[in-house]
């Protein structure tokens, strides 16, 4: 029954939203600890997450990974694993950038999140329209 979502981009957007929310928490922690001595800013690697997502999508598109009896929930888990591994924290030095950089990253993350949520809501509305037959 969950296969009706496999033809939409909802699983991808779901992973994106989960990632942006997790990253928001990390960045908020950075901003909270601006004046903490010895604190090193942390971040979730966006490139890492996007690479794993790309691989998971490619796997989903290629029929070689299909096995009868197992629903395409296989690729669902691999996208899930990608997001889990992306939570590996990437430490980097503060150097000269400080609160401006953290705030700017948070804004970018926020925009990504809002976009993913908006598109996901639109997809759900479309599915509801298709199911009910009322446009």
């Amino acid at each position, binding site marked *: 029954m969950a296969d009706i979502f496999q033809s939409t981009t909802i699983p991808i957007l779901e992973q994106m939203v989960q990632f942006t929310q997790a990253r928001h928490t990390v960045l908020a922690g950075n901003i909270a600890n601006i004046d903490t001595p010895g604190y090193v800013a942390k971040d979730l690697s966006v490139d890492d997450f996007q690479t794993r997502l790309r691989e998971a999508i490619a796997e989903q598109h290629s029929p070689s990974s299909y096995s009868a009896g197992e629903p395409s929930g296989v690729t669902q888990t691999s996208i899930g694993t990608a997001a889990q591994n992306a939570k590996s924290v990437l430490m980097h030095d503060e150097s000269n950038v*400080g609160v401006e950089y953290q705030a700017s990253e948070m804004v*970018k993350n926020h925009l990504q999140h809002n976009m993913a949520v908006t598109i996901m809501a639109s997809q759900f509305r479309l599915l509801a329209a298709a199911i009910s037959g009322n446009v």
Partner: protein
Amino acid sequence: MFSALDISTSALVAQRTRMNAIASNLANINTPYNEKGEAEPYQPRFVVFQADASVGTNGAAGVKVASVETEQIEPRWKFEPGNPLAQSDGPHKGYVAYPNIDMMTQFTDALEAARSYEANLGALDITKDLAQQTLRIVA
């Protein structure tokens, strides 16, 4: 997405570095020792900006601090014969070397930096608003 955000952020960082230099100059306006502890007066710092093409896209460029330079200006001589730092001989015998920093110039620079900071914050706000409004395409 929205590299305008990165450009504005680079400007904010650059202006804050400039404020740091100005603040350091103002704090050390009467410091006869330099940071190494030698009996040389503090020399004012100034930042050199440079356009940073790696930040923007489509020819737009951000800004970065190319270097923080130290001016070499003649110190201000003050007659203090009792001061252990006073020159023992030479043309400035009995004078102590103090930094020759003009407070007014530094304050004007600080104001300019603050206004630039505000202007970039305004640009950042508009960029954020742009992104939010874009979401209205999907009703």
